[in-house]
């Protein structure tokens, strides 16, 4: 027993020696001695090695701030050059307890009409982590899962602006709602990812939906399907449907699809990738006059990563205007994006916009996104 005690002490000393002599390259003898001593000890009497000083753990949430600066040259109007700080987004997120996580996003944005900055709460959610039967519930203020891009925040989208269909139907930042979201992983014999989500609540007022004046609620449903085609290629197909009150105190109903193909060789995924994403939607807006206006929008984008830091892309957009029949916009964009690091994205985009209700114009937009702090990773 004494012998074991001596060995324990010796082993502890040898571990201390190893830990303290990190810069000392003469560790070989100590290491061999350690191995010898360990092999002579019973399994459960092995002492734990001395642990190097670790960073102090903290219960502080992850906090990040992301800036968005823009420089624009536009061919129409008298004021052709614009330089402005577009938005600051502050995110605070953390697990609440073993059962839930919380996420808050505050935005300080510049109003494109009056040029004044205003603060707003964009996201405030509580999400369950441990409900049975592969279910999950989120409540609070969030972006409804309609299509693919609406779920993103502008800084997370490859191009400098959201597609026209998002801008025209939901607004520059996409659509927000307050309510409850429930989802389930749908079991299936092929074991692929299939998630069904249903969300209901009140919409923020936008071109398509309104907060409502009666008990008519916004209801959104989304079916997400994800397939690993190969180790390097994936296909994501989503179907969406949404209905709710509009500003005419009537109902707007939408249906949409999204399709994303990604190719990213897993061995060199930091150097090369290709994305093709297409999204479309149809909208029916019931008006106060008792008529229904049918419009639709679609976009398709491709992005190719040509180096560790550089991406090129192109996008075609077509979008109607909700509740305005026979008015539409078309846009072709070309993108060059450079990322000096994970925390800084510089993008230059040329856009050619054609409208059938107003003159066409071109613009060149430079966008700089820069982030500090710990920002939660975006979904794939």
């Amino acid at each position, binding site marked *: 027993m004494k012998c074991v005690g001596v060995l324990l002490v010796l082993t502890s000393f040898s571990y201390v020696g190893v830990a303290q002599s990190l810069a000392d390259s003469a560790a070989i003898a100590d290491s061999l001695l350690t191995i010898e001593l360990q092999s002579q000890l019973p399994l459960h009497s092995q002492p734990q090695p001395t642990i190097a000083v670790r960073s102090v753990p903290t219960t502080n949430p992850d906090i990040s701030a992301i800036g968005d600066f823009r420089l624009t040259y536009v061919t129409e109007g008298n004021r052709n050059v614009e330089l402005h700080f577009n938005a600051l987004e502050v995110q605070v997120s953390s697990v609440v307890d073993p059962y839930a996580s919380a996420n808050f996003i505050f935005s300080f944005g510049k109003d494109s009409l009056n040029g004044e900055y205003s603060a707003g709460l964009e996201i405030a959610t509580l999400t369950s982590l441990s409900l049975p039967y592969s279910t999950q519930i989120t409540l609070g203020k969030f972006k409804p899962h309609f299509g693919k891009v609406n779920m993103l925040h502008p800084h997370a989208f490859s191009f400098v602006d959201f597609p026209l269909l998002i801008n025209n139907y939901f607004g520059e930042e996409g659509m927000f709602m307050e309510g409850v979201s429930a989802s389930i*992983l749908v079991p299936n014999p092929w074991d*692929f990812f299939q998630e069904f989500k249903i969300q209901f609540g009140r919409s923020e007022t936008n071109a398509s939906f309104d907060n409502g004046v009666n008990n008519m609620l916004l209801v959104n449903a989304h079916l997400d399907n994800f397939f690993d085609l190969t180790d390097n290629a994936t296909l994501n197909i989503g179907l969406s449907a949404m209905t709710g009150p509009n500003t005419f105190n009537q109902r707007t109903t939408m249906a949409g699809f999204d399709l994303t193909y990604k190719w990213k060789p897993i061995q060199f995924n930091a150097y090369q990738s290709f994305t093709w994403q297409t999204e479309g939607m149809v909208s029916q807006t019931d008006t106060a006059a008792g008529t229904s206006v049918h419009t639709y929008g679609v976009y398709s984008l491709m992005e190719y990563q040509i180096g560790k830091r550089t991406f090129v892309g192109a996008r075609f957009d077509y979008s109607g205007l909700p509740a305005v029949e026979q008015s539409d916009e078309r846009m072709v964009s070309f993108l060059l994006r450079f990322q000096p690091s994970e925390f800084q994205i510089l993008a230059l985009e040329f856009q050619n916009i054609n409208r059938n209700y107003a003159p066409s114009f071109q613009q060149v937009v430079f966008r700089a996104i820069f982030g500090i702090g710990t920002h939660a990773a975006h979904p794939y």
Partner: protein
Amino acid sequence: MKKFFVLLYLLVVLSLSQAQVKVVTTLPDLKSITESIGGEFVEVFSIATGYQNPHFVDPKPSYIVKLSKADMFITVGLDLEIGWVPPLLNSARNAKIQKGGEGYVDASTNIPLLQVPTSVSRAEGDIHIYGNPHYWLDPLNGKIIAQTICTALIRLNPEHRTYFETRLRRFIDTIDTKVKQWMEQLKSYRGIKVIAYHNEWPYFEQRFGLKIVDFLEPKPGIPPTPSQLAKIINTMKRENIKVIINSPYFTAESADLVARNTGGKVVTLATSVGAYPTIKTYTDVFDYNVQQILSAIKE
């Protein structure tokens, strides 16, 4: 009689599959060690492959399906996987494997860490605030990882305690024998100076007595720049350094350029199990790497 045996076989298969602990690991090294300890009582899936950069794994939704059914989740920890594990766990809908759950295993527990920073700034590149997370590249740390995994398996499946402990002892014995052999092979080259692409070898360096003088990346996570490569070329010429260590997921262009200008040799080491088809187990990683270094030095 034939029906009886078929029924018996099905019962055995069914009971075995029910007794199996479903484990998801972030890296294939953790998978290999878990299989070494858990044997027939574990079914293990690794999210990352051995030739993939563990910092930049895409959090594909298909992994959520695996995690939703897992009894145990083993992570390297120390924020190595911070870019992809949190969104997967948040969507897994599985309380067992959430941080603090009985099936959540942080393999860095009890590891003596290297390069724990005293202050942190992103101006220094991708710094890991808890210390360098590539600790599995010291085989002696593999023993600590194995002990941690063994404890977790016993917690989830206590009736097989003896089985797991026996296999842990065997794993430790194998590592001990192998470490002596590897260190003996590299003994004559102790202190040899080398260049590495990324700062992921300090544990390997310490164990096997290499001396990494500088990195092709000017700062962790920042791609090599012409000025950094020029500096490396000068350093290699001045100090007569002949070996440049690359990793499977970094393109060899920068390392090759430096090698051409210095007469050095680029050696791509395995960072994980599965980096190359012949590397099937945790010990294979070190067998391969030791051989590669010996070949490069002797050339």
